[in-house]
């Protein structure tokens, strides 16, 4: 029995470590759900710390797909959402879940495929034609299938092209962008990716950009505060401060200045932008 009595002591010590190791609860925390591309590209690590410092708060980033990000906003589990699927965002606002949607930045999607391009996507000029070429050849196409912003965009293109993607060539993976790129490379297939994730992965996956620049491939990011009338606990004031910050001069210059491998990943509205 004497020996055993040491064990509770050990746990007490561990418990103390937990209590002292936990971050101070006094800091105001803002919860933001966002798409994986903003977080995985490293942008938020540059954009958020100056805001946190200025307003003495912490932004808790929950990086999930656009669909789930908006869902978290609907459920009142976050204070602000930062996503990229304009139609879903407008619906979110129209249904009263969000207020004050603002454009933040944009970049573009690219259609990726194996360098030898068996479906001949290189010869096409629009995203819709590229998708038609892939479908008629029956080359493997890896879909996110997770209601992320990229997934929504991909489905829009299929609809616009008048194709219902079905069959063994169309792989509904339910995975994140990085995994999908790796899978497309392994299966020597095609996929739609945001440019930022592709740049992060291009050295790891043997895929090349086969289609870009089409207006269908425009990728716009918006930020929306969760409606405080719907969810009174939502930290609306702080959410608005964040929205003002990322759409204001300080945030915008941080976004424009963010580069990976010397390439700018996100572009601003109205400043040399083509849209």
């Amino acid at each position, binding site marked *: 029995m004497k020996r055993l009595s040491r064990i509770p002591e050990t746990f007490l010590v561990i418990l103390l470590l937990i209590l002292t190791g936990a971050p101070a609860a006094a800091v105001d925390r803002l919860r933001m759900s966002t798409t*994986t591309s903003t977080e995985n590209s490293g942008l938020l690590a540059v954009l958020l710390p100056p805001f946190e410092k200025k307003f003495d708060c912490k932004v808790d980033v929950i990086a999930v797909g656009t669909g789930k990000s908006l869902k978290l906003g609907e459920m009142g589990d976050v204070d602000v959402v930062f996503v990229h699927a304009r139609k879903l965002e407008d619906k979110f606002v129209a249904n009263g879940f969000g207020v004050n949607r603002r454009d933040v930045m944009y970049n573009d999607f690219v259609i990726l495929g194996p360098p030898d391009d068996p479906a001949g996507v290189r010869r096409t000029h629009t995203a819709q034609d590229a998708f038609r070429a892939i479908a008629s050849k029956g080359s493997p196409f890896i879909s996110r299938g997770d209601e992320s912003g990229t997934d929504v965009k991909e489905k829009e293109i299929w609809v616009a092209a008048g194709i219902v993607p079905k069959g063994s060539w169309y792989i509904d993976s339910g995975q994140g962008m990085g995994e999908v790129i790796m899978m497309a490379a392994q299966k020597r297939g095609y996929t739609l990716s945001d440019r930022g994730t592709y740049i992060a992965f291009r050295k790891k996956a043997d895929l090349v950009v086969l289609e870009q620049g089409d207006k269908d491939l425009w990728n716009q990011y918006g930020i929306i505060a969760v409606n405080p009338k719907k969810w009174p606990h939502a930290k609306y004031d702080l959410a608005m401060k964040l929205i003002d910050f990322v759409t204001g001069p300080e945030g915008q210059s941080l976004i424009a200045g963010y580069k990976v491998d010397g390439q700018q990943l996100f572009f601003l509205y109205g400043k040399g932008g083509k849209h």
Partner: protein
Amino acid sequence: MDFLVSSFTSALRLIGALSPDVVDAVRTSLSVAAGATVFAAFLGLPLGLLVGLSEFPLKRLVVTVLNTLMAVPTVVVGLLGYGFLSRQGPLGVLGLLFTPTAIVIGGTLLAAPIVANYALASVRGADPRIVPTALTLGAGRLRTVGTLVGEIRFGILAAVIAGFGRVVSEVGVAMMLGGNIRGYTRTMTTAIALETSKGEFAFGMALGIVLIMVALIVNLFLNLLQRR
């Protein structure tokens, strides 16, 4: 093979450099796992001892249920926890979703059945003469249980360690209830999942190595306790 070797060497370099992200993830993992293990021990040990020491109708059913609970997928516990802790759930007003506390709650639910089952198994495996002997020598019920616990202390320790192992190694609950928030609820396992999805295999591998090291240290500690 090249890929594995190069990831492994960069992993070692990252660990050597003690990147703050690695340190944060390790600290979060250890603290939530330790917290969950403490609570799971408080729940699971008495439960396991009680079921092991008493005879009652439906005992076999209770044991079967306990065994089944050990196999509940972590994402199911995560989903359940999400349903309860979300603002729309019954415990939503507490605002616990996406906090370390939420992971501790989920981890407790994961680990408690394991602790209970191990405790139960050690009671069953104990020398059957302990209880009657203690009672014959005039010990009260509580004292008798105390004596038994002293005799099966290694089994109980193993129960706690197994519970810790379940929590520290799982990713479902930490991801769904913690939200993988950098520097706050990002654990080693959610960080590995994230880094892999970003294609940062070396960083993921570094965390994997740290995770194994932690398991090793915990088990060395157990070994030490058993020797004394």
